[in-house]
């Protein structure tokens, strides 16, 4: 690829300076649009939608539970892609983006777990149930923690980037394996009763469709969460890039003196 051609593809952002300059410009858009979508979506959903026939007002939890669960998974997928880019093309921005995204994923997973547990309590009568979906998210939570812990434990940044990238790859395979294992583990005994009613509302594992009155505010909340994720990743990657620059400057200073 000629230099001119490369300059106009996504790879131009592998240059830290270009990344910082561009993200400075677009961040205000992402912050404000995320805020608007979230406020409108949540207010609409909380105040202006009816209760569900079976679940009463707890259906309102959907506006937080579904978007956060989606982002928890998408965040890991993004980390997987950026880890692969790091392993193949050695762009530091990519490795730093994966590192920056991980804590966002932790928070998303936590929100999904907590809202899932609280939602399930009136339905199941216990604060926690080993429903396959919730259990899979708990395992995902552990994967996130391990990933972050490994970044923190290794001193050399490039070594840390390499090791965490391989961990992300291997972890992804095992996360998928675990999903199937957990489904196997909890469907054999009780059909139906423990299938999360959230699935019924969102139409993801039954044939019921989400009625429009729930769908539009939910869609807006999902968009809001996505925009917030993008804003946070861009901002946090910028922070990581600057931190790396500080380390490089200090090293040069020590070498020169």
């Amino acid at each position, binding site marked *: 690829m000629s230099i001119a051609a490369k300059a106009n593809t996504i790879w131009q952002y592998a240059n830290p300076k270009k990344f910082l300059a561009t993200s400075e410009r677009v961040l205000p858009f992402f912050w404000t649009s995320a805020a608007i979508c979230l406020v409108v979506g949540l207010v609409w959903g909380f105040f202006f939608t009816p209760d569900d026939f079976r679940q009463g007002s707890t259906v309102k939890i959907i506006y937080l539970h579904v978007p956060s669960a989606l982002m928890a998974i998408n965040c890991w997928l993004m980390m997987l892609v950026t880890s692969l880019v790091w392993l193949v093309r050695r762009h530091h921005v990519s490795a730093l983006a994966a590192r920056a995204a991980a804590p966002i994923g932790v928070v998303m997973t936590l929100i999904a777990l907590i809202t899932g547990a609280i939602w399930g309590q009136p339905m199941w009568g216990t604060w926690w149930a080993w429903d396959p979906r919730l259990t899979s998210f708990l395992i995902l939570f*552990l994967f996130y*923690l391990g990933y972050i812990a490994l970044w923190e434990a290794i001193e050399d940044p490039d070594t840390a980037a*390499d*090791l965490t990238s*391989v961990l992300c790859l291997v*972890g992804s395979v*095992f996360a998928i394996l675990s999903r199937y294992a957990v489904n196997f583990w909890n469907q054999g005994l009780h059909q139906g009763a423990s299938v999360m009613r959230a699935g019924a509302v969102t139409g993801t594992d039954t044939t019921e469709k989400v009625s429009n009155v729930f769908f539009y505010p939910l869609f807006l909340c999902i968009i809001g969460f996505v925009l917030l994720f993008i804003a946070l990743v861009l901002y946090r990657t910028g922070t990581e890039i600057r931190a790396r620059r500080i380390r490089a400057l200090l090293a040069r200073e020590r070498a020169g003196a």
Partner: protein
Amino acid sequence: MIALLLRDLKLAMRAGGGFGLGLVFFLIVTTLVPFAVGPQSDLLASIAPGVLWLGALLACLLSLDRLLALDWEDGTLDLLATAPLPLEAVVSVKALAHWITTGLPLVLAAPVFGVLLNLPGPGFFWLVASLAVGTPALSVVGTFGAALTVGLKRGGLLLSLLVLPLYVPTLIFGAEVARRGAQGMETGTPLLMLGGITLATIALLPFASAAVLRVNLR
């Protein structure tokens, strides 16, 4: 390769090599469970397959950080990396040595511990079978975790945090085989899944472990 295997086995058997510690730990865990949940025999009988699997898994975990740390410290790992033997083969041999010294004794000792926990009659065969099929995966996955944390001073705890989520599929299917076997039910599906996971990890994970080891040896 055989030479490396024999060397690792000899090192593990020596005094201070940690051989047998896994078994003792397994015994202690098995003894502690009735104290924790009460001595009613039908309760113990129903949880026995799972508890025994969990005990075996934790005992395997214990000996993992010694797997590579000693060779790392005295420079043997650097030598092995430059030897004509590919690093993937080296890590596979290390995993095999770990299984022979830790996993295999657990498989053989499990029936004795099953007696302590009132494991139902038909369960003994399936417990041993599931452990025999599943523990090699534990060794191979554990070797990957050991390779990730080999350079770290306090790597043991981090090693557990990284490896335990990776153990979940093997644990689920392994314990399911043991449980179904104890109840006299069909064990085909989980056993196949268990075997599939073990074979896949043996075939593929050494590449990841070797890559990680190369990074750490840079």
